[in-house]
């Protein structure tokens, strides 16, 4: 009889809390959104499933050592890759190997939109300070505005490891919500005439330029923001593997096997780190509100800067301000949003190629911003 009581004491029936049940519902919603509506399924399926795993109501901190925060548990070891900042650079390696930077090289002035769209990072940093977060915590929260999950996780792991769960979840959630968050802001800040601006087709880019790009990129960004070296170094290395065309095998591995393995482990561990007991706090609510604000400000920053650039550009060279919203680093979702909004205004206006330029510049921009934050605060 004692054995049965002991067994029942170990089950979820005895240990479930309302918080666990709430988080399980959140996990199920993530899985539903990913499968039914295809919102970032590559991220949301592992994260949603991780939330279920992390909130299955087991007895925490007992001899079984099951939880992600239990010393020596398997999940704890996997979580080390997040806490030590190992996974984000590996993801950047894969992104570099996947990304074609030629839209950016063919129209370099669009790179500036990727810088402008980092506005949300720095304004949210100020906002987070006013909500009572410390200086490093505020920096880690602000980076959500870059809309780049790996960068947010990397910076949080360096500056505020105790907030990594909510920051990572907020960043990944808002990346998935790009098609819902961005369009109203884009429409609000642009006129119908601006949305129908047709841009000149991009010029072709030589192989030599493509090879020079990652080398010049790492040297420039490395000198400006050495803190971003783990992320940008891997990003540009991945791109050099791709563009050199002599390391096809390595590029193929980086853009498929490595990034897939890391994405699965990263997603599951981020999800599992949202155990109700540690996740459902006032700080998490604030982080989610600040993250959404950061994302919206960044979108607005990109759109408004594109309009500002148009003041100085001649007729025929003007930029469709919708592509400014793609300056946030959610690749390629925000570029796709710019494309769909462009088509909505004019069914013959395809903006995807143009939007990819600020989009990939946003990846670089958010990583540089993270590096600068680290340089200031570490």
């Amino acid at each position, binding site marked *: 009889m004692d054995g049965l009581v002991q067994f029942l004491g170990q089950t979820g029936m005895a240990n479930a809390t309302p918080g666990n049940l709430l988080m399980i519902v959140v996990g199920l919603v993530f899985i539903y959104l990913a499968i039914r509506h295809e919102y970032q399924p590559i991220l949301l399926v592992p994260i949603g499933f991780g939330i279920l795993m992390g909130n299955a109501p087991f007895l925490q901190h007992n001899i079984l050592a099951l939880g992600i925060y239990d010393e020596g548990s398997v999940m704890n070891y996997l979580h080390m890759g997040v806490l030590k900042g190992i996974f984000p650079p590996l993801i950047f390696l894969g992104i570099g190997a996947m990304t074609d930077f030629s839209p950016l090289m063919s129209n370099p002035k669009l790179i500036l939109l990727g810088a402008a769209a980092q506005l949300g*990072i720095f304004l949210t940093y100020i906002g987070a300070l006013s909500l009572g977060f410390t200086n490093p915590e505020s920096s880690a929260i602000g980076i959500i505005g870059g809309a780049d999950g790996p960068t947010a996780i990397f910076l949080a792991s360096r500056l505020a490891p105790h907030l990594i769960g909510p920051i990572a979840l907020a960043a990944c959630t808002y990346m998935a919500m790009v098609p819902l968050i961005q369009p109203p802001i884009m429409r609000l800040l642009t006129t119908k005439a601006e949305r129908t601006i047709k841009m000149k087709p991009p010029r072709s880019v030589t192989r030599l330029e493509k090879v020079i790009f990652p080398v010049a990129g790492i040297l420039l960004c490395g000198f400006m923001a050495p803190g971003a070296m783990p992320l940008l170094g891997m990003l540009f290395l991945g791109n050099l593997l791709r563009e050199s065309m002599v390391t096809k095998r390595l590029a193929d591995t980086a853009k498929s096997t490595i990034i897939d393995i890391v994405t699965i482990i990263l997603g599951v561990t981020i999800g599992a780190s949202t155990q109700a007991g540690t996740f459902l706090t006032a700080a998490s609510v604030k982080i989610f509100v600040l993250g959404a604000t950061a994302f919206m400000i960044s979108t607005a920053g990109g759109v408004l800067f594109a309009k500002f650039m148009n003041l100085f550009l001649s007729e025929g060279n003007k930029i469709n301000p919708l592509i400014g919203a793609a300056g946030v680093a959610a690749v390629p979702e925000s570029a796709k949003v710019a494309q769909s909004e462009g088509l909505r205004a004019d069914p013959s206006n395809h903006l995807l190629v143009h939007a990819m330029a600020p989009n990939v510049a946003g990846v670089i921009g958010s990583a540089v911003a993270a590096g600068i934050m680290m340089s200031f605060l570490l």
Partner: protein
Amino acid sequence: MAMTILDLPAVIDLSAIGIEHIRLAITGYSAVFAALFLLAMLFILLPKILSWNVRRRNPSRENDPQDALRGGMIPGEVSAAIAMAISLYFAELHDQETAILTVKRVGKNYSPWNSKIYNVINFKGHQR
């Protein structure tokens, strides 16, 4: 008591923002701009430097349209023409057909269970 979004205005404390924080934000944003501006300048200048080098090496053929191709730079209109030609070619191309329309011949291995002759000679009516 759990905090809600409605409670947020009450917890805003603007006095926590110091001049050093504003300085960090402005400097950080400027540094992001500076890094990407330098990258943009590099890629505005780079094609000019590369094409200047090509022209310097072959001054006599400055207007030769083949120059662009030698440098690996295919003009946009040429790319469009090639794309259109490939598209038309594949649109015109008819599928290779095998002449086997629906039925695929499947070989059967011999077994007493599917042997026609075995079944026929063991049929009682036949033995009679």
